[in-house]
């Protein structure tokens, strides 16, 4: 179980890497399309947001309660039941990309009557993208990616240790 356990630790880090890379791609797309006023669907480009969720959907505690008998200690002299929280192997499932949502905020209107995409009042709808926000999110995603790489290297190092027994 030990080695398999560490292999799945690497898999968990990999889900983190995938998720953060997806986020980076979305941010890169947002920055690149900052001034895109035309899309196939019509209207300006809409900012993309990556939504994460934990890999394990079900609430951990409810699963435990369902599967195992639990005894309560009401006084100190009661003997404790040691096995109430029996280990479940698959509670660590990493992170998943739930969906890539499009920003629903109204577009940024810029007065530019000569622009081919201007409306009858002379306003052009630009994507509502704030470069500073995107940059901050990018740094956060890149640091989270690095943390996952460090964690993966740690698991790798532990497996190499185990091979030296």
């Amino acid at each position: 179980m030990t080695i398999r356990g560490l292999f799945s630790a690497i898999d968990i880090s990999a889900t983190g890497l995938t998720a953060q890379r997806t986020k980076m791609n979305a941010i890169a797309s947002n920055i690149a399309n900052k001034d895109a006023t035309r899309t196939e669907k019509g209207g300006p480009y809409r900012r993309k947001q990556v939504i994460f969720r934990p890999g394990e959907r079900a609430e951990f505690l409810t699963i435990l309660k369902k599967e195992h008998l639990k005894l309560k200690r009401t006084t100190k002299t009661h003997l404790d039941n040691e096995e109430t929280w029996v280990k479940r192997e698959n509670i660590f499932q990493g992170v998943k990309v739930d969906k890539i949502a499009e920003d629903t905020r109204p577009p940024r209107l810029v007065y530019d009557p000569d622009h081919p995409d201007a409306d009858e009042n002379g306003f052009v709808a630009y994507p509502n993208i704030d470069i500073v926000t995107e940059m901050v999110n990018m740094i956060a995603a890149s640091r989270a990616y690095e943390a996952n790489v460090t964690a993966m290297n740690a698991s790798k190092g532990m497996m190499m240790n185990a091979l030296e027994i």
Partner: protein
Amino acid sequence: MPGIPNFIFGKTKIPLLYKSMDAYSMRQRSIVNNIANVSTPGFRRTEVKFEEELKKALGKRGIKGYLTNPKHIPVGRPSIERVKPIPYMPKDDSLRSGLNNVDIDHEMAELAKNQIRYAYATRLMRDSFNKLRSSIRGEYVR
């Protein structure tokens, strides 16, 4: 350890180290899972409790209940064979990172500690096997 004659390994640290390596690998998964979910809104971090359980099993105090039937409920001090790493979610509803209760600095520190503990356990395990081998061969060790 099932299937291995207990009269050789039972006298060494090997069953204990086997337990702790299992526990550390589970803790590694827990830490790694917390790190992977560092930017997941609403995620709750997990921890693995093992050392306290081991301490209880190694302690001399308290009575000990034996299990002679699989349907028995264990009472009192557990034997070492029954010590298991226990994953749990600490009661902590603070929003440390703004999205969930994962504190990345804490997780990285735990990661480093866990790595060292695992390396320590593997080294002790290797030494135990080496000593066992030496005593079987009748060699003088240091």
